[in-house]
């Protein structure tokens, strides 16, 4: 097969994949096994994740306490959001973030923390432009398609193949791969964008991904680009800290050939997704 044929075939494949998402669930050919059969109303937790088993009918007293604390925190956060630029907010913000941003306010707070409004205003029309480019030239559509098909399928919004959320995730990732061509698309980014999309609309999530990758404060760009330079640095740093603070543990790990990458990759790479509760 020559170069032209290969290009033609990949263009056809891209066309097919994009069309399937645009069409959505109507008229799509979905194998019955592709859509999980969950009892939605009995088993969805408050974050939208669907569980195999029914949630316990009796409320766990600890859970009740947690919810109460969260309501209390919500009150404080609402006050803080109203006075976002005040010195009081600046003083308390960091410690309150560490205690956890209440679920109901994450949309607001994440957008504020990442300063989405500013960057969106400065780049009007950019997202739509990138989506158009992706539609024409994306070389990552196949990989993204196969990852969207596997990302958070136990979540209410991602559960159904070609659902609206799956379309959003596909759009954000293909558009971003065009916008940041050095990174393109790297497996793991679907988890990052997938979480953002649980709390934001498409365009906001697109810019949130961009801020997380390029703002010096987060700089995740180096984690995902070819060769993973920042991941390598983080792992080396982790090893040094472990050696300094827990030398016996480190030596034990070394003796058994337990490289840090085997257990810590997801901490750095996907911000603890699948390694910690979302609460």
């Amino acid at each position, binding site marked *: 097969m020559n170069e032209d044929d290969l290009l033609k075939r990949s263009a056809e494949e891209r066309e097919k994949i994009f069309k399937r998402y645009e069409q959505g669930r109507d008229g799509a050919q979905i194998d019955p*096994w592709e859509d999980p059969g969950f009892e939605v109303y009995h088993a969805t937790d408050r974050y939208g994740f669907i569980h195999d088993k029914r949630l316990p009918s009796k409320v766990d007293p600890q859970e009740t306490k947690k919810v109460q604390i969260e309501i209390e925190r919500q009150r404080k956060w609402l006050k803080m959001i109203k006075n976002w630029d005040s010195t009081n907010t600046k003083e308390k913000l960091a410690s309150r973030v560490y205690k956890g941003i209440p679920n109901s306010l994450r949309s607001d707070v994440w957008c504020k923390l990442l300063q989405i409004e500013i960057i969106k205003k400065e780049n009007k029309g950019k997202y739509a432009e990138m989506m158009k480019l992706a539609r024409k030239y994306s070389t990552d559509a196949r990989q993204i398609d196969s990852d969207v098909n*596997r990302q958070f*399928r136990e979540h209410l919004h991602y559960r159904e193949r070609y659902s609206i959320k799956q379309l959003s995730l596909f759009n954000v990732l293909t558009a971003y791969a065009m916008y940041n061509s050095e990174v393109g698309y790297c*497996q*793991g980014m*679907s988890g990052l964008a997938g979480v953002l999309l649980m709390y934001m609309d498409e365009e906001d999530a697109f810019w949130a991904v961009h801020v997380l990758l390029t703002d010096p404060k987060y700089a995740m760009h180096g984690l995902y680009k*070819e060769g993973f330079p920042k991941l390598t640095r983080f792992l080396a740093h982790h090893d040094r800290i472990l050696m300094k603070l827990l030398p016996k543990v480190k030596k034990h790990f070394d003796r058994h050939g337990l490289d840090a*990458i*085997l257990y810590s990759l997801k901490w750095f790479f996907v911000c603890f997704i699948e390694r910690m509760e979302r609460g």
Partner: protein
Amino acid sequence: MASRKKTLLKVIILGDSSVGKTSLMNQYVNRKFTNQYKATIGADFLTKELTVDDRTVTMQIWDTAGQERFQSLGVAFYRGADCCVLVFDVTAPNTFKSLDSWRDEFLIQASPREPENFPFVLLGNKVDLEPRAISSKRAQQWCQSKNNIPYFETSAKEGLNVEQAFMAIAKNALAQQNSTVDLYNEFPDQIKLTNTQKPSGGSGCCQ
């Protein structure tokens, strides 16, 4: 073998994204198939105990990320492997084409003692799907060209041939481990690098 030590076999599964690496591992270890598998980031492993030629062995199966750029993280995962399983999707020609690159990259990064004799097993997965793009013959020809790699056609979804394939994988891994152990045994005495042994007059070459 005289050793009563528990035998651990380390097996690495490699191949392009979405060929069914995670599904094959889960079908073999847990005997189930769902559409709920997430894309594998880095690597994960499962273990299974089985009997090979009257010996109980524990197989540690490492499932890896399929996106090409993750190949550069291989070293940590490939170290100490006893067998490498290559997987492609019989309905996706590009996944067959990548096999050479997966094999070469594995040999470079794992750097086994005898690369030409290191055991690989090839699995052509998703035989339950149509249309088929890579024929059995073509896959077998590739295997012959690589020093006769065993080839199995599997369906992780239907559980077809999975048990047989992993039994062959275990046997090859075990044979590999035995051959490396024999290699060690060819040295009758350890060479001590401390100076507790006095040189026995005149026989040394450095004097």
